[in-house]
């Protein structure tokens, strides 16, 4: 039992290290978690595209993809090794994860060879950015309850409706979308899937301002948007099957939580005086600190168990499904508790006055969304209990009912 690389892994790691050292700037260890760029999003996107092109050129942008798509034809563990090493460098992140993690894999499975020839490489090299148009105001956890409709018109389809929570729609070039083609059949059976150009006339994008103040997501409105039938993925009415390809990749793409953790809480507890003395001497503070340390370590070593399975060429066990269930509430509770330690001053969200640039306040606000995005705490518990423990699925009262006869909040 050890954390060592196999000889092949060690060789790959040293190649990656050499390439990164020659092509990227090491991260400043004193500024490890701040990472807040002062540049505008447009400027960051330009830099991200440059970096993506460089990375794709070296084969590291899609290590597990087949070589004919510009990948390296490598293994999952190699992909992890690259990410571990890249984490030590100050490189742009956050623009291509959804496109390359979810959209393009869906294209690779369902689009024609000619379409993949046209779209995969430009996405891989960062020339074109993709988004995913699934969620709707009335279809969140129950995404198959979506209402955006498509109607056949000659060789085209006309799309009308609204999507929501679309990350990066405002800077994306293409998107994948699932729509309702037949409301007279049960909900999973009446869906049809397309990809489309985000500049198509009739698409209107509005940013959503979050409680944290940021606006990483959008509402996207479709008013008579015309899409050629050639951009349909899968058969008419088979859209749910195509969606599952995308959703299977979602938990991988969403990734683990980051932000302030027990280390920052320890630092805060050392620097803050309570009535009875330093916070770090307070028994309640110590208990909480220990609990979150243990959770963090548990998640870290759970990841190592998954990596071990990958390293041995095995399929990882179900343990990898626990990550977000633990990290979401932990981020929220830890942020909240750190604010408690700050007393009345804990309400300040001020980069100068609040400890660590208001990192705890920012995390407390942001974590409320993290517990919902990419599968709520509750949906994730359903997944664990049904898919890991083998408990019965929820009783679906909508299962065999035509979609247009279902009860809904829109027509109650």
């Amino acid at each position, binding site marked *: 039992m050890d954390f060592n690389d196999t000889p092949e892994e060690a060789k790959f790691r040293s190649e990656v290290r050499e390439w990164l050292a020659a092509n990227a700037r090491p991260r400043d260890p004193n500024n490890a978690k701040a990472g807040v760029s002062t540049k505008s999003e447009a400027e960051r996107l330009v830099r991200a595209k440059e970096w993506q092109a460089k990375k794709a050129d070296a084969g590291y942008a899609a290590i597990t993809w087949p070589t004919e798509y510009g990948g390296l034809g490598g293994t999952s563990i190699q992909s992890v090794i690259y990410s571990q090493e890249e984490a030590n460098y100050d490189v742009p992140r956050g623009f291509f994860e959804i496109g390359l993690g979810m959209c393009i894999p869906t294209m690779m499975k369902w689009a024609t060879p000619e379409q993949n020839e046209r779209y995969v490489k430009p996405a891989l090299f960062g020339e074109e950015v993709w988004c995913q148009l699934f969620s709707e105001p009335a279809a969140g956890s129950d995404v198959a309850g979506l209402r955006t409709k498509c109607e056949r018109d000659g060789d085209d389809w006309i799309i009308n409706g609204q999507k929501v929570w679309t990350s990066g729609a405002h800077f994306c070039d293409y998107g994948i979308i699932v729509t309702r083609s037949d409301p007279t059949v049960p909900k999973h059976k009446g869906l049809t899937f397309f990809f489309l150009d985000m500049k198509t006339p009739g698409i209107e994008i509005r940013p959503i301002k979050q409680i944290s103040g940021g606006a990483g997501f959008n509402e996207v409105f479709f008013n008579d948007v015309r899409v050629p039938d050639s951009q349909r993925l899968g058969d008419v009415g088979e859209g749910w099957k195509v969606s599952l390809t995308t959703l299977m990749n979602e938990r991988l793409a969403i990734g683990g939580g980051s932000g302030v953790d027990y280390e920052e809480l320890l630092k805060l507890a050392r620097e803050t005086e309570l009535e009875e003395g330093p916070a770090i001497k307070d028994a309640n503070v110590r*208990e909480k*600190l220990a609990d979150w340390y243990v959770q963090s370590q548990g998640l870290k070593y759970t990841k190592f168990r998954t990596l071990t399975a990958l390293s041995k060429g095995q399929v990882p066990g179900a343990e990898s499904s626990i990550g977000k269930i633990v990290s979401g509430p932990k981020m929220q509770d830890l942020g909240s508790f750190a604010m408690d330690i700050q007393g009345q001053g804990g309400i300040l969200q001020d980069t100068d006055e609040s400890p660590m640039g208001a990192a705890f306040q920012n995390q407390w606000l942001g974590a409320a969304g993290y517990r919902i995005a990419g599968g709520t705490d509750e949906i994730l518990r359903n997944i664990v209990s049904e898919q890991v423990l083998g408990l*019965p699925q929820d009783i679906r009262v909508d299962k065999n009912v035509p979609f247009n006869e279902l009860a809904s909040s829109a027509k109650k």
Partner: protein
Amino acid sequence: MNFDFSDDQKMLKDQARKFLEDKCSYGDVRTVLESDASHHDDIWQGLCDLGFTGAAIPEEYGGLGLGALELCVIAEELGRSAAPVPFSSSIYMAAEAIKIGGSESLKQAWLPKLASGEIIGTLAAAEGPAAPTPRNTKTSFANGKLTGRKLPVPDGETASVAIVLANTGGTGEQAVSLVVVDLTQDGVTRSSVETIDPTRGHAEISFDNVDASLLGVTGEGWALMKRVEAGAAVLVAFEQVGGTEAALHMAKDYSLDRYAFGRQIGSYQAIKHKLADMYVKLELARSNAYYGAMVLAQEGADLELAAASARISATEAYRFAAQECIQVHGGIGFTWEANPQFHYRRSKLLALSLGSASRWKNRLVSELEKSNVA
């Protein structure tokens, strides 16, 4: 990355599991619950015959000469079956304490007998309902003689040798030492005591000016005991992981069998989410226990931190799984005839046997303060 047990270790685990599935059913555990026996002797003898007691004891002292990782996989299976045997007292505590702190003559005197299971050993620290600390330790050792009273002592009725925490006259943490006592001599009085988990025997032991020999150095008993506790914390964490998994499966199986309001209770989200939470805590505990095992096997410098993490995580997992297992069962789970009680009892016993989670959280943060000067 090779963060897993080896194929040989997994084979050993299978062997332990098969033996215990065969010989240590809940019915067998129940016979100890419902009798005056301190442990189940057939199961204990079987474990000794398979060489499990000597797994981590060097060959020169009659053991198999394997390591901590082998002991960990056996521990998980003992925990899964809630085995009513003195394994933890005799091996994780007594044998390990002698291995770590004992002189050559003490090792030769005791380890072969502990390895074969010919005798049972234990460690006696507590003196009533308070945490054993140097300040709380009244039992005293001077001029080779031990006097005092220990309560509760695990397997105290059947053990032939005890490692005893005794006051040796220093100040602060230097006030205590560990001594080795032959419990079969005159002047040792013992009586069994009632506990929350009668499947594991406990006793009160009084020492009236009896012979004892020092284990390690005078005044360094507290440091040695903490080292022994750290190793035991990892091993007990594996028992707790095994127990957690057993309680989860027991609750899950019942939730699939039991119908209420016309459907399996396991189809209700209130039950599904409870079971999912058990699983999440189990996997965190398992991962922390694996790291503890690795550090223990490598005798790494951060054993205290790794052991505390393993113990805190596994204690919480077993607490939750065992108590919610009864809840999932409803009324039947509260009856004497049902089996959830075995894990409910054992989870609390293990949670306290090496000191409460609060104490270990304090120990953990003290280590963090040392290691992280941020």
